[in-house]
């Protein structure tokens, strides 16, 4: 049923350094991210697995509190990171406070301004930009052979991916505007017989941001460097949603690498003395595995069995990685 395995994909495309798992909530995206990181680290690659989900579970999976602690070494070559957006926002706030104190030579921030800073920081967009900023930092900084993105559930992952192009477009427009204005400024300067004008600090700042974002968004849509996997299970709702999502992702030029089927029950159970619910699930599964096979044809890279216990801790991650690859 599998034309090409997950392990082969990694062998065949050694330049794909950015690995992403997408899918509905609760299908095993985070688990697969962790297991892939484990597999690659065991191959001697330096790997960073990081979560862009404010509702991350990497800490739970590795049984280590890594939230907001930066890249944490889990085992040789394997680093994990959970981004603490709130913390990043607090840093922004502190920067603003410091600027105000310095500029106006004040001892403390007036209450008025303080509550404004607090309200602005709690804007929902703030959290998104904080996470985005941190991801750009991680990617631009480099230092790892592989980056594994543990993404948020479908709808929001899509937004997240689209955000790169959105930011890029915005900055383009703004830089254009700034540049036009700068031309006017220069004309005005010539008219006023001034020889030079101050360098446009804001424009430079914008160009700096643009460069960072281009780097990050370029990665998201780069077929050479990026592999995007969809996680699916043998259930009607999940299959329908995945088909819809895959179409949307295609619109954003996200390079789809294939599908991984999770939570597959062993056919061996069938002949044994099992509870009623399991019998029914096996029958249902048979049907939907067929549907998956017809729908995603030769893009299925792995069937991962339903594990008999939670995948938490390195031992279970190792077991899972063996079944995946």
């Amino acid at each position, binding site marked *: 049923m599998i034309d090409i395995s997950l392990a082969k994909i990694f062998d065949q495309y050694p330049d794909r350094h950015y690995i992403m798992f997408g899918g509905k909530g609760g299908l095993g995206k985070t688990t697969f991210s962790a297991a892939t990181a484990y597999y690659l680290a065991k191959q001697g690659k330096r790997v960073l697995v990081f979560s862009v989900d404010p509702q991350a579970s990497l800490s739970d999976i590795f049984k280590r509190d890594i939230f907001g602690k930066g890249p944490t070494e889990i085992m040789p070559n394997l680093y994990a990171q959970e981004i603490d957006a709130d913390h990043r926002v607090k840093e922004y706030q502190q920067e603003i406070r410091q600027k105000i104190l310095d500029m106006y030579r004040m001892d403390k921030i007036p209450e008025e301004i303080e509550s404004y800073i607090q309200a602005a920081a709690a804007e*929902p967009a703030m959290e998104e930009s904080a996470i985005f900023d941190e991801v750009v930092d991680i990617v631009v900084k480099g230092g790892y052979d592989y980056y594994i993105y543990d993404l948020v559930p479908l709808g929001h992952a899509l937004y997240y991916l689209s955000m790169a192009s959105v930011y890029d477009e915005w900055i383009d427009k703004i830089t254009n505007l700034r540049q036009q204005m700068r031309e006017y400024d220069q004309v005005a300067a010539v008219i006023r017989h001034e020889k030079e004008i101050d360098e446009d600090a804001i424009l430079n700042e914008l160009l700096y941001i643009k460069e960072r974002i281009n780097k990050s968004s370029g990665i998201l849509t780069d077929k050479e460097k990026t592999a995007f996997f969809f996680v699916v299970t043998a259930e009607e709702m999940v299959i329908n949603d995945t088909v819809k999502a895959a179409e949307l992702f295609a619109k954003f030029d996200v390079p789809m690498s294939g599908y991984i089927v999770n939570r597959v029950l062993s056919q061996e159970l069938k002949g044994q003395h099992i509870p009623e619910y399991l019998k029914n699930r096996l029958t249902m599964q048979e049907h939907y595995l067929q549907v998956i096979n017809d729908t995603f044809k030769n893009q299925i890279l792995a069937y991962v069995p339903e594990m008999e216990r939670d995948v938490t801790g390195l031992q279970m991650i190792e077991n899972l990685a063996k079944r995946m690859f």
Partner: protein
Amino acid sequence: MDQITVSMTKYIKDHPRLKYIFFGGKGGVGKTVMAGTAALWAAKQGKRVLLASTNPVHSLSNLLEQDVFGKVATVCGEEKCYALEIDTKDTIERSKQEIREKINWFLKFADLTTKADDFIETATMNPAFEESAMFENMTDLMFKDEYDFYVFDTAPTANARRLLGMSKVYSLWVGKMLKSRDEAKTLRETLSFTKKKEADPLMDYLLSFKDRMAKVQSLLTDDNLTAFFFATLPEALPIAVITRFINWFYEFGIPVGGVVVNGIIQKDQVADDAPEFVRNRVEMQDGHMEEIWKIFGEKVRAVIPLFETEVKGAHMLNRMIDYLFVP
């Protein structure tokens, strides 16, 4: 202790004015199923019920086997049970229009010929935009007050927290905006020769917005009216997620109604000679149930068995009622 002290049924009976209930939790734990069951139950109690999904990835239509996207319809053959998947398209369109006007004004003012459309498209593709629109639609439903009981199926991630926490933030922000707007206006009136009072649409908008936010906040933090229920499975990750959720909700002062545990393998169905796979799962389940009782204790409102088939459609939801609402 390992038994339910206050069941779902008793909790609702003890809160006779309860009107807004929410279901949250990690993805894949059965939030939508719980919400559907609760709505159906309430309708059977004689209440006029609205079951609404505020999840950007809706699954109500799928659960009910009936298309309710962007339109209210009676469901499950229950006359008083209405369902709706909120369609944010119109709200987003309206916001876009507002932004368009502001940007056009700005471009004209700055004497630039650039077309505003690209700006607007990009500005409104922010996820926060959809969230705000969802929140606005939800408050609209609450304020219209056409139903006796509301059941909301929320997004799986932290967005639910943000969705509700937002009301608090907005009122703070609007308060600031109003104040500075008011100062500017007074200044302009002082400087104007005619001393004529001008109409100020922005000020009016801010004022009505502030009212809305204060109102929704008072509804959402009233534990006589509102309760948030968390669904989990007897598995490590969903438990960890709702443990964090609950703490956040306390911080925001949003009333936590309790915890519903879904998908329990019935032990009497597991034979002694069952395969090791099944026995191991049951053993793991026992461990997690112990943890659930320890962490959530008397907040557990129902423990629901794993059904043989997917819960979908009126028949299965009706069956589910007996488990979620034990008399």
